[in-house]
């Protein structure tokens, strides 16, 4: 007897330059009707390929289905012709795509696009479709449905687009949903809301769901069963509780570790001593909007709006915040890659903005940066030796042979074989490329290294290795780090101090263990509680914030967070709170910081 949905012996290959590569090799996967199955694996082509194959949408020139069967409700899908598949698509199986920006047609309003789907799948005329559409938009908890219908995709926020995509998939009236990393590009606080919505819908509408994700935390909250995908194969599968409590494969264990919050690797964190190496005073960076050729700007994007920081030698400062909080702008302004609007930055005793060109160049030697994107942070047309050697060439005069020796030893220092200096970046994996970027940053012995989301774009296994490497290098070379990330576990495991940013300002600051275990600012609390924890039951414990991040052009009056704050009172919209020091360098900017008792994060 076949299950409702079952995959048998599915082998999918890709034809590449180096020959045929096997992408998927799934022996067995089954989902019972009405259940939710979570497929967890690295970010890579494999999972989306599976989703597309189920719907018969895999591009078959490069892709190739070598063998296998996919059974759905008694029918085998891979043997069906195109016209037959069209009856399955939408009506029976619908897909929630990963990136709502690219899966929505940019030249039609979302209302129009949804109408087409409804008219086709529910066989109704336009007027009727409009009514159904409004209901659908309300179902995904989007307020002001009539207005949303008239908007184009680029006029909506990321969270809104994601909900529209879900609404579109639902409006097909399908029995089965394939959700392909539906919260991939969303902020943590918004992600929580989407997860809650998905859980609710699943219970109400009793659809069968194949939920694809790259993070165990997400699936554990809403799935009944999970399967772990590693290198194209399902290495472990079963009920959620079983897998989490008794994992059998080492890879599964790594995934579990990565998803678990607040591990205190804090034991060896010492109180900071030593001198201040970097001081930021009331730094502001505003970008002009709509600047015509001769006209004055219509408005300003206040990306960074008054930030104060102090960084001690040997310390690791973690800066967290969601998209739009200004952390990347903060860093590029501190490094003087952009001119500040106002404020001061004192590095190693020198005023960064008062330096002349030559001194600035020399100072650059001491501050280096490792970027997020391992693919594009290295010039694809340069050999590794030139990439790593560039800072050496700029700041020191070296002969060619000496340069090669230095780059070779740098490469070995980050754990790569020295022959790599004569290769191109694309010959390395993401994690390895990030090591090259680190080697480049260390080439001229800087004092301060800024790490801008160093692990966000690489796979889980490499993430732990990179973090360990960074820790090791910090001790060995006596470095100071600024670590920016939206991934709280990364920040927590490495930082001595944490600064939480929201809409251009720092809202909370202090030692990691203080901020993490006793967050005082409502936003910090929301942030730390929005991530699904493996030990949580379901999604009720997740905290999601209502509304969207306000625009940085017109930040809310008074406390910027008051529009979404559960504790907001009248004073919050009138007066901006000061940074209050609660002791032991833990400062918060909230009117009610005294009253927020130590509410530790649940666990």
């Amino acid at each position: 007897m076949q299950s409702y949905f079952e995959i048998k012996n599915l082998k999918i290959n890709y034809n590449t330059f180096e020959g045929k590569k096997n992408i998927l090799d799934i022996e067995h996967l089954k989902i019972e009707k009405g259940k939710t199955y979570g497929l967890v694996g690295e970010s890579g082509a494999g999972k989306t390929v599976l989703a597309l194959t189920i719907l018969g949408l895999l591009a078959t020139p490069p892709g190739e289905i070598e063998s296998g069967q996919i059974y759905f409700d008694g029918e085998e899908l891979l043997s069906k012709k195109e016209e037959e598949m069209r009856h399955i698509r939408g009506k029976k199986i619908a897909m929630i795509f990963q990136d709502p920006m690219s899966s929505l047609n940019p030249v039609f309003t979302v209302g129009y696009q949804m109408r087409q789907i409804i008219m086709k799948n529910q066989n109704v005329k336009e007027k009727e479709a409009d009514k159904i559409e409004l209901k659908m938009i309300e179902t995904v908890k989007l307020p002001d449905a009539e207005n949303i219908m008239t908007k184009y995709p680029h006029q909506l926020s990321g969270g809104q687009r994601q909900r529209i995509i879900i609404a579109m998939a639902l409006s097909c009236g399908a029995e089965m949903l394939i959700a392909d990393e539906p919260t991939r590009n969303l902020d943590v606080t918004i992600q929580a809301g989407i997860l809650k919505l998905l859980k609710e819908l699943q219970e109400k509408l009793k659809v069968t769901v194949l939920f694809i994700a790259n993070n165990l935390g997400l699936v554990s909250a809403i799935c009944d069963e999970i399967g772990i995908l590693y290198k194209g194969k399902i290495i472990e599968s079963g009920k959620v509780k079983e897998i989490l409590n008794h994992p059998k494969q080492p890879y599964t264990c790594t995934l579990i570790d990565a998803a678990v919050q607040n591990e205190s690797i804090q034991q060896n964190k010492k109180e900071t001593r030593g001198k201040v190496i970097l001081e930021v005073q009331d730094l502001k960076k505003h970008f002009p909007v709509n600047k015509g050729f001769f006209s004055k700007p219509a408005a300003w994007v206040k990306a960074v709006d008054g930030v104060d920081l102090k960084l001690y030698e040997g310390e690791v400062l973690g800066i967290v915040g969601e998209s739009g909080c200004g952390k990347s702008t903060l860093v590029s302004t501190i490094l003087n890659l952009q001119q500040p609007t106002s404020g001061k930055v004192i590095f190693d005793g020198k005023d960064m903005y008062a330096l002349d060109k030559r001194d600035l160049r020399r100072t650059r030697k001491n501050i280096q940066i490792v970027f997020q994107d391992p693919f594009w942070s290295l010039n694809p047309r340069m050999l590794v030796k030139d990439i790593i050697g560039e800072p050496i060439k700029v700041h020191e005069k070296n002969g060619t042979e000496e340069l090669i020796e230095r780059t070779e030893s740098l490469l070995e220092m980050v754990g790569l074989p020295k022959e790599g200096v004569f290769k191109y970046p694309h010959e390395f994996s993401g994690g390895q490329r990030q090591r090259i970027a680190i080697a480049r940053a260390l080439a001229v012995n800087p004092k301060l290294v800024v790490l801008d989301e160093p692990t966000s774009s690489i796979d889980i296994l490499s993430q732990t290795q990179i973090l360990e490497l960074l820790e090791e290098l910090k001790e060995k070379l006596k470095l100071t780090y600024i670590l920016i990330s939206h991934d709280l576990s990364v920040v927590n495991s490495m930082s001595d101090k944490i600064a939480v940013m929201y809409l251009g300002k720092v809202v909370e600051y202090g030692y990691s263990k203080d901020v993490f275990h006793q967050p005082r600012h409502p936003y910090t609390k929301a942030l730390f509680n929005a991530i699904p924890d493996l030990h949580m039951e379901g999604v009720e414990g997740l905290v999601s914030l209502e509304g969207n991040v306000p625009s940085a052009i017109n930040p809310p009056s008074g406390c910027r967070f008051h529009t979404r704050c559960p504790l907001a009172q009248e004073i919050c919209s009138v007066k901006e709170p000061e940074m209050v020091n609660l002791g032991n360098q833990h400062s918060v900017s909230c009117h009610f910081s005294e009253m927020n008792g130590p509410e530790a994060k649940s666990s």
Partner: protein
Amino acid sequence: MVALRSYILKRLLLGILVLFGVITITFVITRIIPSDPAAKWAGPRATPEQIEAARIELGLDEPLYVQYGKYIHDLVKGDFGHSLRSRQPVSAELKAHIPATIELVLLSTVIAILLGIPLGIYSAKRKDQWLDHFSRFFSIGAVSLPTFWVALFLQMIFYNILGILPLGGRVSTEVALLYTLPNITGMLIFDSLITGNFVVFWDALLHIILPCITIALYPIGLVARMTRSALLEILNEEYITAARSYGLSERIVLWIYALKNSLGPTATVVTLSIGYTLVNTFLVESIFSWPGIGRYIADSVVSLDYPAIMGVTIFSACSYVLLNLIADIIIALDPRIRI
């Protein structure tokens, strides 16, 4: 809506700026003539005094910025100077020649679009099948043929060998003698249709076929290729896969979704093809004895009649700027650009 209006305004201003630039460049070109226009104007047997008088008459003795001002002033008034050959005002000669070219360009562009776009679309739909290969080869071949040679070749076949089409001109001499040719728009095909004179219509049609096909060949190839690549790019986008995943029929996906996405590239392509057809007329009108500005400029080039050459250049360039402006506005219908 406000955003659209301000966008159009911005493009208009830019267009005017560009027009100014075009005119300035033509001015600069005319002033670096190695040979002496005054001598040309005065004639081959002129005395030095006559040449000097000619210079003053042409205003060439004044300082450059004054000349520039006069140049602009004259242009705005519509005065393009006088042809060195005929001594007639260039503007009048242009007016006489333009309708014939417009007729040719219009018809050829319509043919180019009617043939090129469907070819591109079906080629994209059936990628790598025989239709695709055929049309790609045809397109590349079409843009590799020298237009003037095609003209001669077609004449050779259809006039010389087969004898079914005339050698040149807009109408045959008999027809021109027997009937008074209607002149409403200056375009014989339309005028004869409007007045119901089918003999003239048929005759004019026979005469326009060869020039049309010759000029349309390059744009057909271009349009087909660009349409194909634009469509292929769109069809590879994720939103098309998504639309398919929702169960929408291919008909809707292709003809409603993909087509609207391709409005922008299509507008560009149409503008380009008008530009190419126009330029092809320069090469081909003299071969077909077609009395348009193409023949006018070809003759002017041979005798180095600078005012005439510049007149045609300015007219063509300004028309092209206008066309591009219209194309830009159509592209602005893509909502992403307005914001």
